[in-house]
């Protein structure tokens, strides 16, 4: 029996690993045999994620990606310690729900910093010689917000739309290096990050969101599976795409 999704012997860096999609992706990838380097701000929750992983050779790094001075130097040193990376999953990100008229300059800067600038700098750092292994795969967590319009999510949507565009050009530029670059765009799923949004919505509004997802509200594992598919050999001929994982939301 073959298992095209096994990740034995592969080293994968996961950001935003202490909660939600990042945490569940890390757990799934460890179950598929990968060795993981986890990055997140919250030391306690990072350790919790690490202790939930299968296998024992994983590394946790407590770091705020908005405060990294030199991504290229950081990843170079890291790759020197753990060997070249076979994958990068960028899950760290923020959501802001508010009408555009109430947004402030610092909201724009903050959201673009973590959702797009950190992603770009990470990908650039990953692309350095000796940092990535041949046949590497990069997966950036996007959102259906980057593909469809939603009131109150203008800034968030802008960052995710930018991420999708960045991914496409990166995929073409990095193809010659043997690095695949893809996005995964989830619909509405329940995570710590969307808890805040849910607190801002009425029962009726939440019911409407659920109704707009023909397969119902998703779970973190639904997204983690898509990420794993793109990282493993199952995604060998896929690059530059945004894989929509939304229970049918955008099919309507």
């Amino acid at each position, binding site marked *: 029996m073959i298992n095209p999704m096994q990740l034995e012997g592969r080293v994968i860096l996961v950001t935003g690993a202490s909660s939600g999609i990042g945490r569940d992706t890390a757990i799934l990838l460890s179950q598929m045999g990968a060795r993981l380097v986890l990055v997140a701000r919250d030391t306690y929750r990072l350790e919790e994620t690490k202790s939930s992983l299968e296998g024992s050779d994983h590394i946790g790094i407590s770091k705020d990606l908005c405060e990294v001075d030199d991504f290229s130097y950081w990843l170079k040193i890291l790759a020197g310690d753990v060997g070249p990376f076979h994958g990068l999953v960028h899950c760290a990100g923020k959501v*802001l*729900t508010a*009408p555009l*008229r109430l947004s402030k300059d610092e909201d724009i800067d903050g959201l673009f910093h973590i959702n797009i600038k950190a992603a770009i700098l990470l990908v650039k750092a990953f692309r350095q010689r000796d940092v990535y292994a041949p046949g590497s795969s990069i997966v950036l967590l996007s959102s259906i917000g980057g593909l469809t319009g939603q*009131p109150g999510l203008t800034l968030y949507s802008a960052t995710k739309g930018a991420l999708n565009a960045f991914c496409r050009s990166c995929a073409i530029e990095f193809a010659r290096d043997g690095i695949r670059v893809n996005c995964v765009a989830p619909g509405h799923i329940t995570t710590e990050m969307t808890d805040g949004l849910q*607190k*801002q*919505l*009425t029962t009726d*509004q939440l019911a409407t969101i659920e109704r707009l997802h023909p397969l119902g509200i998703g779970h973190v594992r639904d997204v983690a599976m898509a990420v794993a598919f793109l990282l493993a050999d199952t995604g060998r001929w896929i690059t530059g795409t945004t894989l929509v994982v939304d229970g049918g939301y955008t099919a309507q």
Partner: protein
Amino acid sequence: MRKAEFLALLALVIEAEPGSLKGEERLDSLEGWDSLAVVGFLALVDEKLGITPTPKDIAAANTVNDLVALFGDIIA
């Protein structure tokens, strides 16, 4: 926070003239008070006051003063 500041905040959310809100206004009579304004209001009070009333609390409020009352002693 003083009540006048709170009213100024609410006026910002619904794009009303600064100083135009007194408190007795019915929320359903305010032109800019819609679902998007509620989302913005919740984000703003969370940032300024560290408190997020539930959407159910907001839906139960009939007047601007009812909204003020949701924050208890925090608004003097």
